[in-house]
Each structure stands twice: as structure tokens, then as C-alpha cells.
């Protein structure tokens, strides 16, 4: 009886600690960023200056950088992630399936700084020479490609993020696809569908899971710090084209924090940026979790 009591108390203590940490993280963001919001209000979000000397900060260019890089990442990675999931289940011979899934899981567990190093010294030069320069040369009249690119910029960051988030989206889709009831598969083929038509039907059936996967991957992309900080160019400008150097919120924090203590309002400003990132990320992740729940209820 006694040891039981003590045990439950210990369990409760640890659970409480976990909860406390979550609450603490959110509180520290709110409290520390309060000075910048109370001084500047919403103009902290909607201006585009970052001038430490004048203690004038705003987050919009970095927020846009986050949105642009994530958008690039999602548009590239979604078809790839769906393909990878379908490939591992429907196309590859079953004895290689575990191998493919292991590869996908390994991609998910590589440290982001390794992606960053590779992105900086391998991916960026290749993209620069074979993708960005040609795009700029032939399609430079389109505003998206108007800047004369250097290797590290928003586009490179977006592509690197795409590579990094494929396994997250793919594994959510893979699990849902595997959970499709067998009779539905049978029904599809019994109607005389070709394999591709059957796959399309299946993908339609797990639509919510695909959304969930995309949203969870989007959340990852928006929060990713190191890899982006290494290839995004780290320049505070209002982005006008995909080939501009820029910042994302998280890379702004990573890059600026080491000198932040020298200023009065830079730390609140960086925490303010993190707070906005947190809110946007939370919304996106809740949407992802909501869709996952929908899948679970269905199956």
C-alpha cells in the first residue's frame, strides 16, 4: 500500500514536470516577448526593418521567408512523399519493402546540421548552376526568378527543406495506406480497375491522412533551424523573388541571438518572432493532428 502510494506520487510528479515544461516554454515566450509587443504593437509584425542600432525591429521579412521556404518545400515534397509511400507498398517487391522504409526512416533521423552542411557545400552549388541560373536566364522576366541568384538563398533553403520533410509526410501516408481495409482493395480490382486507377481510388480514400502528413511536414519545415540557417543567406531584406537571400524566423534567431544581449530590445524581438512562429506552427500542427484523428476514427 505504502510503496504503491509513493510510486503513484513519483509518477504524478514526472507527468506534472512534463506538463510544467510545456507551460514553461509557452510562458517564457510570452513573458520575454512582452516588451516588444507592448512597445510596438502589431507594427512589430508588419514592418520590414531590422535595425539594432536604432532598436527598431520587425519580423515580417523573416516571417515571409518562413512562409516562402515552407511553401517551396511543401510543393516539391508532396508529390515525392506520396510517390515514395505508394512505391513502397504497391510497386516494390515485398522483400525490398522493409529496406525502402528503413531508408525513409533514416532520412527522418539524420541530424539537420548534416543536411545543412551537405546543402551548403553540395546541393547549393548544383542548384545554382543547373537550376537557378538557367531559370533566371530564360525566365528572369517573371518576378519570382528576377534576382540574379547566388547559391545560398530562399530557393535553396526550400529545396533542402523539401528533402528533409519527405520522410515525415511519407510515413504518415504510408501508415494510412497500409490501413486501408483489404475489401476496398478487392472491390477496386473487382471493378476492373487498372493498378493506377486502384491506387488513385485508395489515395482518395486516405485523403485526410495525406492532408495530415502534409501539415505535419509543413510544421517541421517552418520550425527547422540549422539546415536553413546554413543555406538561406541570412540577410534581412524584404524578399522580392525566390532567389533573394533572406531569413526565416528560426534562422533569424539562430543567427542574431549571439549578439542579442548587447541590445535592449533584440531579445524581446527574437522571442516575439519565436512566439509568432509558435502560434503559426501550433495552428498547423493542430490541423495535422485533427486530420490524423479523422483517419483513426475512419479505420
Amino acid at each position: 500500500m505504502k510503496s504503491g502510494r509513493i510510486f503513484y506520487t513519483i509518477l504524478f510528479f514526472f507527468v506534472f514536470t512534463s506538463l510544467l515544461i510545456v507551460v514553461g516554454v509557452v510562458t517564457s515566450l510570452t513573458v520575454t516577448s512582452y516588451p516588444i509587443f507592448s512597445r510596438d504593437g502589431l507594427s512589430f509584425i508588419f514592418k520590414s526593418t531590422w535595425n539594432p542600432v536604432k532598436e527598431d525591429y520587425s519580423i515580417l521579412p523573416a516571417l515571409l521567408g518562413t512562409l516562402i521556404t515552407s511553401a517551396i518545400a511543401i510543393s516539391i515534397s508532396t508529390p515525392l512523399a506520396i510517390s515514395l509511400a505508394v512505391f513502397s507498398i504497391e510497386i516494390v517487391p515485398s522483400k525490398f519493402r522493409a529496406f525502402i522504409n528503413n531508408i525513409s526512416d533514416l532520412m527522418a533521423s539524420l541530424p539537420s546540421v548534416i543536411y545543412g552542411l551537405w546543402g551548403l557545400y553540395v546541393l547549393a552549388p548544383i542548384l545554382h548552376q543547373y537550376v537557378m541560373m538557367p531559370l533566371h536566364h530564360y525566365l528572369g522576366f517573371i518576378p519570382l526568378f528576377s534576382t540574379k541568384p547566388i547559391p545560398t538563398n530562399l530557393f535553396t533553403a526550400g529545396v533542402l527543406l523539401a528533402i528533409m520533410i519527405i520522410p515525415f509526410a511519407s510515413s504518415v501516408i504510408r501508415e494510412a495506406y497500409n490501413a486501408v481495409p483489404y475489401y476496398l482493395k478487392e472491390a477496386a480490382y473487382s471493378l476492373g480497375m487498372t493498378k493506377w486507377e486502384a491506387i488513385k481510388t485508395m489515395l482518395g480514400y486516405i485523403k485526410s491522412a495525406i492532408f495530415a502528413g502534409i501539415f505535419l511536414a509543413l510544421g517541421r519545415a517552418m520550425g527547422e533551424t540549422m539546415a536553413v540557417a546554413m543555406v538561406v543567406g541570412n540577410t534581412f531584406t524584404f524578399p522580392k523573388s525566390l532567389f533573394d537571400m533572406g531569413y526565416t524566423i528560426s534562422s533569424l534567431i539562430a543567427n542574431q541571438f549571439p549578439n542579442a544581449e548587447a541590445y535592449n530590445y533584440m531579445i524581446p524581438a527574437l522571442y516575439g518572432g519565436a512566439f509568432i512562429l509558435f502560434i503559426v506552427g501550433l495552428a498547423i500542427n493542430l490541423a495535422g493532428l485533427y486530420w490524423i484523428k479523422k483517419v483513426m476514427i475512419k479505420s
Partner: protein
Amino acid sequence: MLGVISSLAIISAIPIFAIIINIYSEGARHLTLNFLIDLPPPPVSGKSGGIGPALVGSLILTLLAVAIGGSIGFFTGLYLSEFSHTRLAHYTQIFLQIMVEFPTIIIGLFAYMVLVAPLKRFNALAGAFALSIVIIPYIALNVREAYRSIPYTLKEAAFSLGVSAPIAYLRILLSTARRGVLTALLIGMAKAAGETAPLLLTILGTTFTYFGGLDQPINAIPLLIYNFALSPYERWHQVAWGAAAVLLTITLMIFIISRLVVREVKV
């Protein structure tokens, strides 16, 4: 159309192979004992050098993180599994699922406020604290799965032996769920060893000292890779590639071990 899917799938797997090949082709020649223990070379000289301080730092930080985050995560996961009917478990579970997706740099900001700002100094403890928080949700959610997968009848068998709850959960049933729990800890360890963003805000990253105490700055391999890769010195870029080869090797080893553990479970 199936051809298109196959090609896209193969394209999406190319980077991982490219990364492994590039990192080992650039970094493998650094994988010597001296590289693992020596101080980094001066930035402009042909002298040899290594990543000793960062390796020591990574070991200390990872072990501390697994010890702190592992115990909090383990007991939280046990609670989530065995008391899943309680409201506390329900909300904790949702919180942890959100916490998994927290950008880790935000956790670094939290650790900075709690342990760096008050001490007025970047320090190893703050780094370990931040890494612990990063891995808590991974460990908790995986431990929960491990305990949930124990058949109910084995739980009944354990308690029917007339033992107290801690003995039932921590001796009898823990050994039943040990592979799942071990996998959880390995996942946490891999995360802690490779995580970088929170360290940037907590440990600063010393270059030429090994370990000066938990209240002093310290270095870690991922942080060294970041700092050296972005430095203007070619000699340090080389060290970054070598360090990446070390980190990749550690990651691959943990990954393979965890796969072997899981495979044995299925038998």
C-alpha cells in the same frame, strides 16, 4: 503512371545516398583516433587537429540529456499507458504530441531564460536541460507504446503474484516491454546527439577547452559543424566534414542498433 511514381520515389531517396557518400568521401580520411581526441587546428595553418572538445561535450550532454529526459519521459510514458483513462493523461498526451512538433529553437529560448540568463553565462547544464526537453516527448510517447503493447493478461499475471505496483511495472513488466523501452531511449539518444539549434542558445561552443564544469560553456559536435562550416577558413571546413562523418557514424550506429532491437521483438 506507375513509372512516374517509381521515378519520383527513387528521386526522393537519392539525397540520403548522396549525403552519405559525400560526407564519407570528404570526411572519412579524418576518422582517426587523433582526430577524435585532439584540439581543433588553428584556422590558418597546415597543422593537424581534431574535435576532441566537441566529442567530449557531446558525450556529456547526450548522457545527461538521456538521464534527465529519459527518466521524466519514461515515467510520463508509463503513466500515459497505465492511467490512460485519467484526464491528466489525456491532456498530457495532447501536450506531448504538440511538443514533438515544437521547433527546437524555441526550447533553446526557454532553456536560455531558465538557466543561462540567471547565471549570466552560457553553460553545459543549460544545454543538457534543453536537450532533455527535446527528447522527453519522443521517449514518453514511445514508452507509452511499449507498455501499451503488453498483453493485458500479462499485466494481470504480474499483479496476481501479489507484488506492489512499482515492482509489477518496473521489474516484471519492464522486462516484458524492454525492447520497446530500449528503442525509445535509443531514439532519444540519437535526437540528443544530433540536435543543434537549442545548443546555439545555451552552450555557446568553446573551441579549445575540453570540459570546465557544468556551469561553464562547452562544445558539441553538431554545433562545431555549424560554426566551422560557416567560418571563412578552409581548414575548418575540413574539420566540419570530418566531424559530420563522426556524427553520421554515430547516427547510423544508433539507427542500426534500434532496428536490430525491433527486429528481435517480432520473433
